């Protein structure tokens, strides 16, 4: 990226500011508009492959490869209300910038993250993938449904919901700028929410 060391988003967080919050809320409002649905088969297949790859990398705990799918300045957001709300005024289940995502991965790798000792086994199904155009042709919004089967501590459970991915074309591939994970039980008590969704 050629960024100054002090602006390296892995080390410092300057991009999470009021402008970003306002943009994020705007970008994730009213975007699932049928008139903007992308019907092109090839494009839809690209979206689907992107999300399937993301699911596979997470299932395989290949966190570094997974994170490489994200733009340098990215947001991972799991709202705690079904309407997503305003993360400046509401606690989220998770709200990570790049550095905190790296914290999350670092913690899981310490060997002392008891909530993931041993690590959950997961299998993710990603379906109902729909793309939506934005005002910028190199930026798309993708909606998908997910079903994560998670085995941990002698128990198999299901986590489900839908995701919104905001993706941007960089060179010849798509990078994820923001991922909003809408758990269906986002406002309820959840046992051991310690995997990356």
């Amino acid at each position, binding site marked *: 990226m050629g960024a100054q060391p002090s602006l390296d988003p892995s080390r410092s967080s300057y991009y999470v500011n009021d402008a970003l919050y306002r943009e994020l809320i705007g970008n994730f409002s009213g975007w699932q508009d049928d008139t903007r649905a992308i019907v092109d088969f090839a494009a839809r297949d690209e979206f689907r492959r992107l999300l399937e790859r993301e699911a596979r990398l997470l299932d395989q705990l290949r966190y570094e490869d997974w994170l490489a799918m994200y733009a340098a300045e990215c947001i991972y957001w799991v709202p705690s209300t079904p309407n997503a709300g305003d993360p400046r005024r509401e*606690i989220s289940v*998770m709200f990570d910038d790049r550095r905190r995502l790296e914290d999350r991965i670092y913690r*899981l790798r310490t060997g002392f993250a*008891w*909530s993931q000792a041993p690590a959950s086994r997961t299998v993710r199904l990603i379906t109902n993938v729909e793309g939506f155009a934005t005002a910028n042709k190199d930026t798309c919004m993708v909606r998908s449904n997910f079903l994560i089967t998670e085995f941990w501590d002698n128990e198999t459970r299901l986590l489900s919901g839908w995701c919104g991915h905001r993706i941007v074309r960089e060179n010849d591939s798509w990078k994820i700028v923001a991922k909003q994970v809408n758990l269906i039980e986002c406002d309820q*008590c959840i046992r051991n929410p310690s995997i990356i969704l």
Partner: protein
Amino acid sequence: MTALEKISAPPTRVGGTALYDWDHLVQEDRAHRLIYTDPAIFETEMTNIFGGTWTYIAHESEIPAENDFITRRLGLRPLIVVRDSDGKIRALYNRCTHRGTTLCRWDKGNAKSFQCPYHGWNFLNNGRLRGVPWPDGYADDMRDPKYNLAQVPRLESYRGFIFGTLNMDALPLSEHLGPIAKVIDEWLDRNPGGKVVVCEANRFRYKGNWKLAYDNSCDGYHVAYSHRSLLETENRFAGVNAKGMAYYRNSPDSQPMYMRYTGHGNHFKDKRPNLEKRPGGLWALESAHPGMEYYEAEFIKRYGDRAFSLLDLAGSEPVNINVFPNFSLLGNHIQVFEPISVEGTNAIWYGTMIVNDGSVPDEAVTDINALRMRTQEGFPNFGEVDDIANFEQIQRGLMAIEDEWVYMNRGFGIPDRIKQHDDGTITAPATDEAFMREHFKEWKRLMKARPNLAIQREP
């Protein structure tokens, strides 16, 4: 006047006098595994503890306007906590007086009345029965107060924190809180106007007894181990252990922090003395959070010398204030423990934000809250998950029937380690289990008692 209905002793089991010899189950330095695993003890707790003493119910900011309601529980009793049409805060039993259906299934909302989905009985939000379908089918006078909703008879707020009890002999809330009220005051008064507003939560459930969470609330012994992944993560760039709760990593008992027991099962752990006493002293302790560098630079530019005292408002207050049996203030959170069953508990970390009292620029309030949301998400995400995993493993370990005892004797019997003060409070080093020994004395007192429980109905 409101009518009180005295609760008779619950139906006794055949042959049952006292359930157990409580003095045997809870001794000075150890507790029996049964108190965490026995369903009959849990059932007794649901009257003698959750009912028999003051229990945290909700925060007033969750029902700011008339007719606002939220649904909560007192022990296992479903409640509708409402600010009624006259502005009075009530905790109505969420239970139709006809057949017992819950009247309200929503987590929150605004309603002047609640209608039973089963047969259509309709209740005003002060609990009075407003009407029933085809009343001519009843010989009884439906205005009889017995048809009005049951309510928690004693509901008191301490500076916005609503507590309730069914025990008519319980001390007034302010006396019950006693010396811990001062620490609650300090926790509130560092915020503009001495106020906070609840703003969503990190919500957890674990397969373990509720007391495992309360036993942990003042525990300074577990931090370096249970939270090792967090401490390592927070300090991965720090070089030296400087961030978050790093002061636990080396000789925590020689640090100025301490625990204090204040009576009635209440205690706090005070880590504030570890801090540098200067504007920004708290902020300096914060580990990496989204946006922190941007806002710090922006605040210095905008507010100059005042920047760091403003940033401290987003910092996590280093104190754990615990009111038995289900309430903790820690960092900027209001943490609430909700028993579900003998081996099931909700642990909810309600976030708080500041509100402007005119002393802080509006823009700063928005920005402090944006930062404060992110600082508050840190511990639940990277710390609490590991604690509750350990609570679950305790519950599993306690299934070993013959290995009966849980020890809480750290600090016990060491001369001069624990200090009794003139006001009746007790202080000890931060890793001592003195707090646990003391709250179990209160637990035992309540379990032995025959509490004078009542419910209330509108006349």
